[in-house]
């Protein structure tokens, strides 16, 4: 009997125990671990495609447009972005910059890690793959630099005092969840960006000039921008000048077509939008670029008043009042004005979808003009602005600029930046950068301001909200170490 029991027990347990591993050691079908995710240059390219895909400019569009003076409430809005428009700015404000940029940086680091581990043989095929991989890696370094710079623009305590707090510097793939990043100094970030951009320049092929991707020219344009922020005026001027040799300023007709995604003249880098991508016009319209398209925001009277009907930018920015679905202009500063925004009119990809023209020759010319003015080369600055206006007025009936002094020049340059780059993520930063030189803050037209029941129309020059954005709640939730910006 005992033997029988033993045999049975033995059979039962042994038979089942042996099959235990198969129940508990399971590899999921389709599970892609790092060792098989990136095998060759083509996979690296796929990684880069993901990095570009994560880079969107909607966060910059939102803060610059909603928080500053280029918008008023649209006729169909109820509460969309009401708090932000009312200058309620805190760690939970809806500004998608911090998280998406660090996501891009993290994804970049993943692919760069794989790139660094990759080896290619000496055969011609191997070398060709090597140069493909290098070209990808160069763009990755450029993307990492650009993302860090974007973060710096909004969250750093200063652009010029390199000892002030910048943002966390991320150059590796993380695996310890307890890691709490701290903010590197502004100088450290600039150095890091410079190094990445140098690496990028060395790796990207000379003949790679597809403006849908980050080319060597795009890197130069980024450097021009960085030097403008750093107030390295001479360097900014040189870089902008260099690019203007290759990239012509779009004619009025071309300029209009650029924003319809029908021309590439003067576009150094565009972030292409296809179906499923973030729609730039979605900030202004819920459904379509039409009067009945659920208008959330339209153009502020303040910006409208600054526009000249003969300027092509009037046509680009404002939806034609003659269109039955277009703007309604009742009078100057009339509260009933519906100044519909036409800058992102939609494309064949979708009714609200347009490419983001992130880096253009127009901006380079404005960088050049500003750098010139800042260096007291007022005549050169006048010339640069005249060159721009020459390309914005069909009939050349603009008032020729001949600035008397630096402040007059800067004032006009700020206005030209506003007209040229409206809704493209510059206005808040421009006011911030010009605030000392021109002694200005954010000043809204009273009618615009009341459109959304704003309690507060203006933000003073030294207000903390103009100095830097708050580190967002998502970071604070996980990070006790990080220092919040002053005032928040």
């Amino acid at each position, binding site marked *: 009997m005992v033997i029988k029991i033993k045999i049975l027990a033995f059979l039962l*347990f042994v038979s089942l125990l042996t099959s235990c591993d198969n*129940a508990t050691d399971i590899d999921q079908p389709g599970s892609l671990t790092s060792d098989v995710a990136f095998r060759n240059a083509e996979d690296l390219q796929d990684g880069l495609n993901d990095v570009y895909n994560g880079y969107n400019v909607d966060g910059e569009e939102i803060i610059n447009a909603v928080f500053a003076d280029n918008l008023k409430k649209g006729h169909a809005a109820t509460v969309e972005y009401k*708090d932000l428009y009312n200058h309620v700015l805190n760690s939970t404000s809806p500004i998608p910059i911090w998280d998406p940029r660090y996501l891009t940086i993290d994804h970049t680091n993943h692919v760069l890690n794989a790139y660094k581990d990759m080896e290619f043989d000496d055969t011609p095929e191997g070398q060709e793959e090597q140069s493909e991989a290098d070209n990808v890696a160069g763009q990755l370094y450029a993307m990492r630099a650009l993302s860090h710079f974007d973060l710096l623009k909004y969250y750093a305590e200063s652009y010029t005092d390199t000892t002030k707090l910048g943002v966390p510097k991320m150059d590796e793939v993380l695996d310890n969840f307890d890691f709490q990043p701290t903010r590197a100094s502004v100088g450290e970030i600039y150095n890091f960006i410079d190094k990445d951009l140098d690496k990028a320049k060395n790796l990207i092929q000379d003949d790679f000039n597809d403006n849908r991707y980050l080319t060597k020219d795009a890197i130069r344009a980024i450097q021009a921008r960085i030097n403008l922020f750093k107030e390295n005026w001479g360097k900014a001027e040189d870089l902008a000048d260099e690019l203007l040799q290759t990239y012509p300023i779009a004619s009025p007709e071309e300029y209009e077509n650029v924003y319809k995604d029908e021309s590439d003249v003067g576009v150094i880098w565009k972030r292409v939008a296809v179906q499923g991508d973030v729609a730039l016009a979605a900030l202004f319209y819920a459904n379509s670029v039409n009067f009945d398209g659920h208008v959330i925001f339209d153009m502020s009277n303040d910006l409208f008043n600054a526009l000249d009907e003969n300027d092509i930018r009037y046509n680009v920015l404002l939806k034609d009042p003659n269109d039955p679905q277009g703007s309604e202009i009742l009078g100057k500063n009339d509260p009933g004005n519906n100044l519909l925004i036409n800058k992102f009119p939609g494309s064949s990809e979708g009714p609200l979808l347009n490419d983001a023209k992130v880096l253009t020759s127009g901006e380079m010319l404005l960088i050049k003009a500003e750098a010139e003015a800042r260096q007291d080369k007022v005549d050169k600055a006048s010339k640069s602005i005249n060159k721009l206006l020459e390309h914005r007025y069909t009939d050349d009936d603009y008032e020729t600029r001949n600035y008397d002094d630096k402040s007059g020049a800067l004032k006009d340059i700020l206005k030209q930046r506003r007209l040229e780059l409206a809704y493209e993520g510059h206005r808040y930063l421009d006011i911030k950068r010009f605030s000392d030189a021109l002694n200005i803050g954010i000043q809204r037209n009273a009618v615009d301001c009341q459109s959304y029941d704003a309690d507060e129309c203006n933000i003073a020059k030294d207000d903390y909200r103009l100095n830097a954005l708050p580190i967002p709640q998502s970071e604070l939730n996980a990070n006790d170490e990080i220092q919040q910006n002053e005032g928040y």
Partner: protein
Amino acid sequence: MKSNLTLIFVVALFLIGQSSFAQKKELTGTVIDDDGTPLPGVNITITDKKAGTQTDFDGKFSLEVEEGDVLIFSYVGYTEITKTVGEEDVMDVTMKEGESLDQVSISTGYQNITERTSTKAVSKVSSEDIQNSTEASPLRALQGKVPGLFIGSSSGQPGESGRVILRGIGSFNGATNPIYIIDGVETGQAALRNLNSDDIEDINVLKGPSATAQYGNRGANGVIVIKTKSGEYNEKLDIHYGSQYGFSKMLPINKELMNSKERLIYHRDYLGSAKGFALNDAEIDALARATDTRWRNQFFQTGTTTKQNLRISQGSENLKSSTAFNFYDQDGVIKNSGIKRFSFQNKVEGKSDDDRFHYKSDIKASYSRTDITPQVGVHDAWSNPALIAYQGAPYLSPYDPDGSVTKTGGIDEQKSMFLVWQSPYAILNDVKLNQVQQDRIQLMANFHADWEFVKHFTAGVDVNANYQSIIDDNIIDPSSLRAPTETNDDLNHYGSANNNDRRPFRFETKANINYNNTFGDENEHTLNVDLFTEYHKNYQNSFGFFTGGLNDRLLETDQAYLYDTKENGEYVYVPYLDLRKSEQISGMFSYFALVDYDYNERFGFSGSIRRDASSRFKGSNKWATFWSVAGRWNLDAEDFLEDSFVDNLKLRISYGTSGNQKIGGNDFSALDLYKSTYSIYSDAYINSTGISPDVIGNGDLKWETNKQFDIGIDFGLWQNKIQGKLDFYHKKTLNLYKGRPVSPVFGTSEVDDNIGTVANKGFESYLKYIIFDNDEWTISVNGNFAYNRNKIKDLPSSDENGVIENGGGSLGEGRAIGEHVVGRQIGVNPSDGNTLYLDKDGNVTEKNENDDRVFSNKQRFPEIKGGFGADISYKGFTLSQKWVYTANVYRNNYDVTDLESEGNSGGLQNSTSMFRSWQDVGQITDIPRISTPNQAQVDHDLNDRFLQDASYLRLRNVSLSYTLNEEKLKHHLHLPLHSIKLYVQGDNLLTFTEYEGRDPESDGLGGDSVGNYPSFRTFSVGLDVNF
């Protein structure tokens, strides 16, 4: 019972003494039940002799007795009867259904134990409490019947069963579902809609640690063990037919809505915009007289339910079988929603002549088709029919001028598509044309065999398989108004088909050796030991596709995905087709031992220990050990309670642990989280292929562990006229899964991790009092009450205040899971009409910021819940009623938010309470001025204005039945029937609550009521016939 027996002994001895000359004689008789049905297989024993017999097929028996012998008649499911033999030669006995406590057998799925010798906290619900339910899912019938079991009603959608919480919430991720074991096979809650409640024999709800620890790796949220009806050995052919018909009506909304005139006046005099703005009194009158629409009538209907059951069972000496068919058809109260179900079950059981070998084979097959109301539960009145039904503007007409039901209400759909989408018309059109359908096929098979290969030793094996195919088939009809949103504009072909077929398959094997022996000088020791191994494996394959641009012919087939190119007449595929396919596997392996010891039915101990491994973890975290110990003392067996009014008194104490490894809440989610993985996708930059980091591996993930202590008392007093149970428990769940915030530099803001400890402490009670019981009348009342207090004990990675900030979903140490974290509004400022709040320091302010939110001490999940009822029967009539209640529960009332929201002002509806909006300086009112600037007005996280007490008392069910028994049927009516039962019943007849809006019970995701499918009132009639 013991005292009864002693008494009987004394009487018997006395009688024996009196009739010492008594002669042996042959006693014959028939045993029948209440209905007059003969009972076969009733055990008849003579108390002081080792003699006895069983009744035969016709309930007849004969037995050699002496006068004065005491006979005990016992039969499973019936109350034991004791009779003393007198001078008669014939003894007919009628047995009543019902069980005395020491006969009740409870099942944990692994063991069957008598209630008397059980150490476990288990509640049992028998078939009488479940049968004749009008709901598709049997779970709903348990509401208010099991102390400590909360069954919410997240949706009145036919087939849905709602949130189930047993002894409080023990998880942060909201996964509260216990596991369901149907005849030994584990299945999920959604599968219950395919189970017919009339086929259920009983349901055991395992709550206490010594029961749930048996399920170690799965038992953390409790276990619900469902047993379906079987045949009996030596049973004549029994055919049971049941039929039910019911109709349902929507419950009324507890909020007064504006009529057309009021709405237009509101526009003009309060809002200063929208439809009524520019109208004068006469125009308003004219428009209001022409159109005053109650959109409810357009969306709702009288629902109907029909149910047909057939069950055939039969048994011979060594074989018994049961076959059941069921057809169920419910049309919901929202148009075009409903469920149709067909189910089939066949169970065969057999044994060897010597009763040492048993086997069972059980196959269930079922099919259901559920038509789901689209967008229900979505907080958007412009797409959710359950919302627009109340929030559609009353001055809009559902009819065209010619009297037919309108399509767009006169809006030109080509020109202003957007205006159409923001109207009730598009939703009416959705409900009519667009399909959200789920087909569910379920096959469950169970094979069991056991063999007593040596005396006291039994080896058993179980093989279970559970296969489901769940097909979601959603179609946006190309002719529907919504169709243009669902397609690729290039194609100019509208509509879409979205199909998903998910096929989970579960395979389990279980093997055990059981040792069971009763020994000792007086057989006072009983020892039962089980050794088990258990193997689980789950596979899931799914396949699906989406295609946009349909041909409006043959929508159910792929011919709709073709379109005719006019040029050459050839059919070409629409180029937009999105395919999905996936496969997941998970598994577990365990071995464990269960021990039960009983001493003379006075003391008992039981224990369990098990080792479990899960495929979700790696390294040393893979295996975990769970255990339990429990003891009982049957005090009624003690001398000091002899001859007292106490028939039954048992003290139980148990402590044990169990585990949970389902991070995502089900078998197939959150697998492979311990390693970093990437994903490849096709719509990266400019439609290229992208490779993206997907999961950041967390190698430290491990089992959630549940530790529970339970102390309970079971009692029966005054011949068990009063019966009850009391339980206190303290349950602690450690290493809880929670998405833990990580710095966004990781490319994500959360990773899954084991953090936190939560405790649930509570008290449960059940009481039944049989007030009156004789041959004609039975009157009894019963009630249960449960209180549970949830508290987060430990929350690592929280801030210095012990809080993990997550807006309204913030968690805090010392707080409950599901505690509302809100800004406090205190009223309306009479001077400017803005809402006044308290900031976090208690200062009055008009600005309410995120930081001003505080823990409210108000819970999303009820702390108090229970039910009570009364049953009265007279002869064949039975009247029973059942009430359910919950208290200490608060919900954000989105219904009222919408109806009192400025956002609804334009084309939607408001309640008449909006006329109380602040208008004049100095006005004291509770509703702020229209266009108050602070967005917090409608943000639930920032404003507790709409956080309402959702306590309620509801008359869940009243039923009246009349049963004709065999005697009447056969002898008076000459019908060849055993019994006929006729009944009428009503569900959800009365509700007492202060909650505004539609339904305090409506418990949506996260415990708030967000435009769910409303509960309804049902009246039904039915018939049960036994042949």
